[in-house]
């Protein structure tokens, strides 16, 4: 049916082309007889389909330039609007510990630290699970009902909106974390904080590392695995000494991509991180990440130019950091797939 469809459309094209040619021939005969200026002009014009082709091709080119311009525009806009703050504050923006709009002191260190703590804690928590999913789907159950079940469930995790994760964490997870904090004697037991944000983030980033890891593990040449089995290796030994060494760079790239996600993730973090504008003292204390800081402060900041510019600069830093991490990840994937 699929091929019949194509045949039909090609045939239709053929007919159209034929009728075009007939019309063209007729045109040609007329011009021989009369040869008026107008007719000559019409004759010299390229056939309609070629004009259409040119238009289409230039439209394709134009739209791809638009995509390029979009990135340049984003970069330029962020740079332009953070210039006032870069000029006024300079590099000490990165290591000033206070964010005090009434006194016009702007420093991003607390949010930088918050982002680093939450994303790396989330990564540490999620790595065993995402590698577990990757090995399960790539090696133990490459297809079949178990594989479909896990794959669909992991897809579901990726599909749940981050604001829903955040809201769930805010109402369900926070009380449990508060109990935990009471037990181990953290004061004040807020429940909200960097640790809670890390927990929510850890769940959210599993799909990214898991799906890429699965692909990479599946790419291990079966000749290598069979050779190891032939030498009498058990399944675990094959996994440990053939599959994982072969796919480790790919798995690492997947982990990097999920780190990029964790750093940029906003809503889920904003709702559970506690939104305190201060230097976090430990992993349980409330704080802010760069993204949650923007989400909380941007609307207030829009009245004061310097404050707005500082918030945009945080966004700019966020953009650059995620770009760098994603870029390294993609480079590793590319090298891996060329191997």
């Amino acid at each position, binding site marked *: 049916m699929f091929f019949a469809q194509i045949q039909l459309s090609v045939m239709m*094209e053929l007919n159209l082309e034929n009728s075009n040619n007939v019309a063209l021939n007729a045109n040609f005969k007329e011009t021989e007889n009369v040869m008026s200026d107008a007719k000559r002009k019409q004759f010299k014009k390229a056939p309609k389909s070629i004009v259409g082709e040119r238009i289409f091709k230039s439209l394709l080119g134009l739209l791809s330039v638009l995509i390029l311009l979009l990135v340049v525009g984003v970069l330029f806009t962020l740079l332009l609007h953070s210039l006032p703050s870069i000029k006024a504050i300079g590099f000490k923006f990165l290591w000033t510990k206070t964010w005090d709009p009434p006194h016009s002191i702007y420093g991003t260190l607390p949010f930088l630290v918050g982002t680093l703590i939450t994303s790396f804690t989330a990564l540490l928590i999620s790595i065993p699970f995402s590698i577990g999913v990757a090995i399960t789907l790539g090696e133990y159950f490459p297809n079949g009902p178990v594989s479909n079940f896990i794959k669909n469930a992991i897809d579901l995790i990726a599909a749940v909106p981050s604001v829903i994760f955040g809201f769930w964490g805010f109402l369900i997870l926070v009380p449990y974390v508060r109990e935990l904090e009471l037990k181990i004697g953290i004061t004040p037991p807020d429940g909200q904080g960097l640790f809670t944000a890390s927990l929510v983030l850890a769940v959210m980033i599993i799909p990214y590392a898991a799906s890429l890891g699965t692909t990479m593990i599946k790419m291990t040449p079966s000749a290598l695995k069979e050779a190891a089995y032939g030498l009498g290796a058990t399944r675990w030994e094959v996994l440990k000494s053939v599959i994982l060494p072969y796919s480790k760079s790919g798995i690492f790239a997947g982990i990097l991509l999920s780190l990029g996600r964790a750093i940029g993730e906003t809503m889920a973090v904003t709702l559970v991180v506690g939104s305190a504008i201060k230097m976090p003292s430990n992993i349980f204390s409330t704080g802010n990440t760069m993204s949650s800081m923007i989400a909380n402060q941007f609307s207030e900041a829009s009245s004061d130019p310097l404050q707005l510019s500082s918030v945009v600069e945080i966004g700019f830093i966020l953009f650059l950091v995620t770009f760098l991490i994603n870029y390294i990840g993609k480079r590793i994937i590319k090298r891996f797939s060329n191997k």
Partner: protein
Amino acid sequence: MIVMDMNANLKWRIGKSKMAQYFIVGLAFLCLIPLALVLFYIFKKGIGSINWHFLSSEQMSGGIWNGILGTLIIVPVSALIAIPIGIMGGIYLSEYKQQKFAIWVSTCVDIIQGIPSIVLGIIGYLWLVLPMHGQHSALSGSVALAVMMLPIIIRSTEETLKLIPDTLKEASYALGVPFQRTMWKVIVPCGFNGIISGIMLGVSRISGEAAPLLFTAFGNPFVQNNIFKEMGSLPLIIVDASRNPSPETQAQAWGTSLILLVIIFVLNILTKLLTSRWKVQL
């Protein structure tokens, strides 16, 4: 003696292998617990608050109609912006994959995909709200979401079109069919399901996004259908509820979460069905 030793050793190795397998598969299943908890609580707490009044009245009187309407306006508008550019971009990338410029464009698509959603919110604000003297508008939110959706459509179009055998294109060229007709009448129809599933994936991804809308569409507790004014949306209602927590707003947010989840799951299931059909055809 040696044989017995070897047997013990073998048993130990096989046992270790089995243990490792149980452990790893166990870890994989453990991931599903948080998902199950999220789904369980949302269904349990959300189902009670859904009724006709909840769906049809404004946020102030305990409903979410302003959010439903807002999502129904903002998301299609951004799809309208993203779909033409996305499909054309995908065609460009799959047709000119060996050109140097195409590699640049492809890198740009990767960059756009990596932009954090909150940064897109800032961009939407700086591009379309600040020049309008700070007038928040649904349109600016749609533009921010369109940028977010664009890479998904481009990638899915590109990947689908790359799967189509070159012989089809060559056959069409050999019959004298010009390039753009070959594209629209032969190549794109063959990859139609793949492209549609990319679009639906994009729509399901952006319909749950709140971060790009915070400073652009801004949210509105009243019904608004002018895209040049502030507009509410379903995710923004959930954000509102967690900023002013009270039993009523919480119930409202649980209900909203449930509706949002159902919408997104339906879109995802449709996408899955389409892609599986597409694979059978190929």
